[in-house]
Each structure stands twice: as structure tokens, then as C-alpha cells.
């Protein structure tokens, strides 16, 4: 496992046409393809590293560890197969959050989920406050078009909510969170549609 393809793609993308967007369209497509290939290869290396980092106890067995960490590069089109899994079978989703900066960060994560009965725990088993937000039709529409083009078909399950929860991550470190089926611990957002009145201004 290496990051060589990503290095090659990034090197090519330093060309002045790539930086400014003055390349021809078929060249832009080539840059995008190379970046995607590079990301996919690097993702495997990162998955292996995260698997070693998150292993409790001895690190000597690290190369043989098999925890398979996946990323969601298509979160921008609301497509994240790992987080869209069915949690009702007693399984839980492990979310590992890595901070590449040298200071502690507190942020809010958003991932698409199917169920509205969800509970989030931190690595010490404490429940974490969470919120469910219905996914906007505009986002679902974009997801459907792109995922269908990407996979040739639509996945059976369709996410209904964004699950938002706060995370705290140490400098140059990571934290883990666990998402499982629960008794509606995540609060569903209060939704209202307001029709502005004309001319009141």
C-alpha cells in the first residue's frame, strides 16, 4: 500500500491550467479521474493505519489486524453505504474521527442514516447528544441521479435523516463513537415551513 498514485495526481494538478480551471474539459476529466484513483489507493493505506491505531493492547499484531475502515468520499451527494446500514440486527457502527491538526477540535459530524431510532455513544460508553434532520429533497434528487450513474442502479435502502452529533478530537489524534439502534435517543428536528407575506417590508 502506497500513496504514489495520489502523489502523481496531485503533481499533475499543479499545472497552471488545473489550478485556474483553464484546461479543456477532457483534461479536467482526466485530472478528476487520476485524483479519484489516488484517493482510492490512499484510502486503503489510511484504513490500515487507522486499524492499527485503534487496536487496543499490543501493537505487535498490527499488520494482521483486519478491522476494515471505510470512508465516504461521496458524502457530498448524501451517499455513504457504511452509515446507511441496518442497525436493527444488534450491530453497531463505529465512527473513527481523526484530527490532522495540532490543536483540539470540537465539531459537529453529519452522516446519512436510515432509522429514526438511533443512539450515539462515545468510546467510554457515555451517551452523546444527537439530532436527526430530514434530508432535503434537493439533496436526495442529486444523490439519486449521481448514484444511479455511478453504480448503474439505486441501492435498496434510502437514507431519511442526517444524524448530527458533536465530536471532540485531540490534536493529531482520534476519537471513536458508536452508533446503534436505540429508543429514539436522537432528537428529531422540529420542522416548519413558513410562507413569507408579501409587502410587509
Amino acid at each position: 500500500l502506497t500513496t504514489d498514485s495520489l502523489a502523481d495526481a496531485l503533481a499533475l494538478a499543479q499545472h497552471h491550467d488545473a489550478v485556474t480551471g483553464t484546461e479543456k474539459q477532457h483534461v479536467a476529466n482526466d485530472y478528476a479521474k487520476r485524483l479519484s484513483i489516488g484517493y482510492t489507493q490512499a484510502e486503503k493505506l489510511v484504513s490500515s493505519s487507522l486499524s492499527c491505531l485503534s487496536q487496543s493492547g499490543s501493537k505487535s499484531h498490527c499488520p494482521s489486524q483486519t478491522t476494515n475502515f471505510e470512508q465516504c468520499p461521496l458524502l457530498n451527494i448524501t451517499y455513504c453505504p457504511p452509515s446507511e446500514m441496518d442497525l436493527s440486527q444488534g450491530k453497531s457502527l463505529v465512527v473513527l474521527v481523526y484530527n490532522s491538526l495540532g490543536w483540539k477540535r470540537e465539531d459537529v459530524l453529519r452522516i446519512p442514516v436510515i432509522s429514526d431510532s438511533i443512539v450515539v455513544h462515545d468510546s467510554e460508553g457515555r451517551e452523546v447528544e444527537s439530532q436527526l434532520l430530514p434530508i432535503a429533497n434537493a439533496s436526495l434528487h442529486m444523490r439519486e441521479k449521481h448514484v444511479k450513474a455511478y453504480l448503474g442502479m439505486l441501492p435498496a435502502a434510502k437514507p431519511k435523516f442526517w444524524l448530527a452529533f458533536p465530536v471532540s478530537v485531540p490534536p493529531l489524534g482520534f476519537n471513536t463513537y458508536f452508533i446503534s439502534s436505540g429508543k429514539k435517543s436522537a432528537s428529531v428536528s422540529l420542522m416548519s415551513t413558513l410562507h413569507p407575506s408579501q409587502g410587509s417590508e
Partner: protein
Amino acid sequence: NSNMQIGQGQLKLQYNAAGALSLYSNSKTQVEANFKQKYKYYIGQDGNGSDPQASGAYIFRPNCTVPIKTDGQVPLTVLRGSILDEVHQQINPWIYQINRVYKGKDYVETEFIVGPIPVDDGNGKELSTEVVTNMATNKTFYTDSSGRDFIKRIRDYRSEWKIEVHQPIAGNYYPVNLGIYVEDGSRELSILVDRSVGGASIKDGQIELMLHRRLLHDDGRGVAEALNETTCFDNQCEGLVIQGKYYLRIDPQGEGARWRRTFGQEIYSPLLIAFAEQDGGNWV
């Protein structure tokens, strides 16, 4: 028929009865500012007639400005919760916007989904979003240079030579890679971006960012094709849809630099999220 407020923490946004963003307030920093968020597009010069220079990949050459009016027409969908509030607006058939205010955060996050830009009227379009305040900024604004120091820009002025501006819009646009800000002696309005865009302050108290462009003519500077990217689904092609975010904050004078540097770094290096499956409740 009354104002609506969102925000569970110290930062609040107020929308007026016409559904337009009208006030930004932060109880911690005591900053309060009248505030509008709008969209407009520039019709790209086609290179015909008296001006042979078309708007294209290299050249921004607007022909005229078309405001996108929304007051009193766009329903707002509001989601409120314990962690964040968000307001969804379908500005027009090809612009969707979500404003978010997080309970523990001091900035407004705006997500935009823009496209496909319609060109069936024969006009290429360059879409900009505007943030308008009543700040007296005296023709001055600041843009970063590839993430390095912010550089002072003055409308229709260059410090090193006498410029005669023939393009009042394009002549004042600058690259924005990290952010852009204005100040009026008591407050600073900063906007940070998640991608490189063009930006300017065309009027005092105003900042605009160009979010998307779709043009129908080559500008004749080398690329030899129009900036008219499409995506194809089932053998049908349509103009590109883009999705991104910008982040806005108003600080007391002199207090914005720290946020622009630290949060700018966080935008550039987002948290990496990885998922794994686990049976049962055996915490790793």
C-alpha cells in the same frame, strides 16, 4: 407576519416577515448588524458587437447584471434542534440554499447547491451571491493570496500605478482561496470559503462571491472551448450542478484575524471520518 429567529446559542439570525435574512446578532461579542443575503447573475459578454471580448474561462466580462429576487416568494423550511438550526430555501429552480447556526459555534454556515444554470435563452451566466450590510467600508476590502496574508484592495485603485477602470465589476474582482473581509472601524465582516472562487466588494458594506459559471463562448485566450461543463445521465447531458459551503462571521474590530486563520485551517483540513462495523456492544 412577524420576524423569525434561529440559533440556540449566542449567535442568532433573524428573518423578516418577507422571508429575508435581516439581522445578525451575537450576545457574547455584542455585535449586531443589519444583514442581507442575495443572489444575482452576470450575463456573459458574447464577443459580438462593439466589444469583441467574450466572457470565458480566462476572462470575466459581464454584459449586464440580473438580480434574483426572492422577497415574499420563497417559503422557508426551518429545522430546529438541540445541536443546530437550519433554514432551507429554494431560491429559484436552480439555486438551493441552507443556512445553519450551530449551538456552540460563532459563525453562520451557508451551503449552496447551484445548477444546472439554464442557458436556453442563449445567455451564458455567472452567478454570484451577495452579503450586504450597512458597514461604511470606504471602498476597501481584503482578500487572501493563495491562503497567505490578506492583501488590502481598494475599488478602482492600484497602489503601484494609475488605473483607469473600464470594467467596474470585473476590474475589482480578486481570487479568493481562503476568504475575504471588510471592516468599518468597529466591526469586521469575514467570509471564508471551501473552494477557490472570485470575490469582490463592489459597494461599501457588501461582499460578493462568484459561485458558478456557465458560458457559451470561447474567450479566445487559448483554451479554445466555452466554459460549459455538463454531466450526463442516461445519455442526457445537463449543465454541472455544484455544491459547496461558505462561512460568515462578524467580529468586533481586530478580533476576526484569529478566526480567519484557525478556522480557515480547519476548512482546509477537515476531520477525517472512517467507518467500521461491530457486532454487539463491545466498545473498541
